[in-house]
């Protein structure tokens, strides 16, 4: 997979500052409390007994006392977990850097606040990935060109490195931008940020917008009733969809849903069956521009799920992520294994999703390489297949138990 690797900015714990910046609390980040707050707010289970058994407090005692020590430590952790709240403010300093000036946009960027960047926090023998929900507002350092020239010279003298001093609170889990994936992604809200030089002098103070205001200003919440994938919706009559598909893409084939189909699916409408996926050894594999559509119909000939695919020449997954988040807003789930998968809307039965390893949500979008390595040769980049799927979640829930 050719995704640009997720970049890690390492936390510089306990970095000492000069008196000028000493007004900021020089306390070490309470990693355990970060983790506990995450587990408390998200409901992501924490095996307290296992964590206690591995703790330093328990490992220090004799084998004879280990059982009691484990119980005591587990109780201590449980009490901290119970007391964790979203109101707690944390403070951390992170080694960071400022980008080169973007002449088109008239701005610099703060490294940590770009999509895909996170602060790794080690707690209980695991890594937690700290992302900031309102990072986009804090990311840019806008500046007219002439002013930017002097600022850039200053950054060059610093090696473009700064200390990112962050005050934040934890608000939940998952990266709303869909760029940081995996388990234990801690969603936080920036409350205050300062960028400092080595002497502790303020280089820049980014603008901070509260999470609710920032989110509302960017995109509205996902609305399942109005959602579409490439302009197509669910809940429409198959006859109208068929006419539209024929006008846009050509021949449409009607078929049965198959014996193993989800309960309630009675038929399908298909455009360009298997025409968007390369098969090794196939004589004529699809080329960029190929479009495929599969719609699943219920017994009343109403569309209950629709999947639209298109093959592209190589296009970066970040372009894909950006376009999808712009259209649908903060993601409900994201996975990155062999490709990238993003999800929005309510959860649906796993049997309905396009990729079972991806988010199990009503609307999903997938980016994968269409790697026909046998015919493309070593010098050509792989094509990319983008799949958008929308499921009528309400209908599916009603039929899942039948």
């Amino acid at each position, binding site marked *: 997979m050719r995704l*640009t690797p997720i*970049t*890690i*900015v*390492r936390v*510089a714990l306990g970095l000492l500052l000069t008196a000028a910046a000493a007004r900021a609390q020089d306390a070490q980040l309470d990693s355990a409390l970060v983790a506990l707050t995450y587990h408390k707010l998200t409901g992501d289970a924490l095996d307290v007994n296992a964590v206690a058994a591995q703790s330093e407090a328990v490992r220090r005692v004799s084998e004879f006392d280990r059982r009691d020590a484990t119980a005591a430590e587990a109780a201590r952790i449980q009490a901290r977990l119970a007391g964790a709240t979203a109101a707690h403010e944390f403070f951390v300093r992170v*080694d*960071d*850097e400022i*980008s*080169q000036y*973007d002449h088109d*946009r008239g701005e610099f960027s703060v*490294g940590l606040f*770009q*999509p*895909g960047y996170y602060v790794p926090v080690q707690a209980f023998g695991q890594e937690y990935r700290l992302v900031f929900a309102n990072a*986009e507002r804090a*990311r840019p350092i806008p500046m007219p060109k002439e002013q930017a020239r002097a600022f850039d010279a200053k950054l060059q003298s610093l090696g473009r490195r700064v200390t990112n001093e962050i005050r934040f609170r934890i608000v939940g889990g998952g990266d709303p931008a869909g760029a940081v994936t995996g388990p234990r992604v801690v969603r936080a809200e920036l409350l205050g940020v300062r960028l400092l030089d080595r002497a502790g002098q303020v280089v820049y103070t980014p603008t901070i917008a509260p999470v609710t205001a920032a989110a509302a200003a*960017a*995109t*509205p919440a996902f609305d399942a*009733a*109005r959602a*579409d*994938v*490439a*302009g*197509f*919706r669910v*809940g429409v009559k198959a006859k*109208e*969809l068929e*006419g*539209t598909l*024929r*006008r*846009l*893409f*050509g*021949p449409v084939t009607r078929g049965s849903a198959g014996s193993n189909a989800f309960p309630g699916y009675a038929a399908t409408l298909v455009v360009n069956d298997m025409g968007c996926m390369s098969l090794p050894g196939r004589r004529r594999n699809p*080329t*960029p*521009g190929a*479009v495929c559509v599969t719609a699943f119909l219920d017994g009343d000939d109403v569309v209950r799920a629709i999947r639209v695919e*298109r093959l*592209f*020449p*190589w*296009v*970066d997954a*970040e*372009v*894909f992520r*950006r*376009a*999808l988040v*712009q*259209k649908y807003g903060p993601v409900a789930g994201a996975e990155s294994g062999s490709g990238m998968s993003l999800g929005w809307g309510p959860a649906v039965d796993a049997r309905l999703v396009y990729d079972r390893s991806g988010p199990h949500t009503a609307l999903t979008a997938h980016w994968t390489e269409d790697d026909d390595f046998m015919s493309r040769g070593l010098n050509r*980049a792989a094509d990319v297949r983008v799949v958008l799927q929308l499921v009528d979640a309400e209908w599916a829930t009603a039929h899942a138990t039948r």
Partner: protein
Amino acid sequence: MGRYAIRTMPLFLAATALAACGHKDDATQATAAPSRAGQVWEADHAEDRANAPATLVAFVNGLHVVVLDGDDAYAGMTRLHATSGADGKRTIPLANGLGAELVPVGDVMELRFSSGESLPLRKQPPHASE
């Protein structure tokens, strides 16, 4: 401190003027594309890697293959209202603040997004079944 490459800048959404008041909001209901009226336009040079980002944005918003019928654009089964402007340009409001502009350039059309991408559109040739 670890040194790592800076990634691609995220896009800013440019504000786009919405279509004039008075149009019925079709965003909440699907509308079948006309079976014969209007003209189908599609992304041109699909194999051109330089066009891929813009084509992807068009695909996500249903504009990679679109029926244009006067001031109506049918992106899949979503009818969008275009506002005609000078020099034959038509402005289409899309989801969440994104906008698009259809600009005639000779016999072809250019689709320009407010987020900065643009791609050429061509009249779709007749389907093999027609």
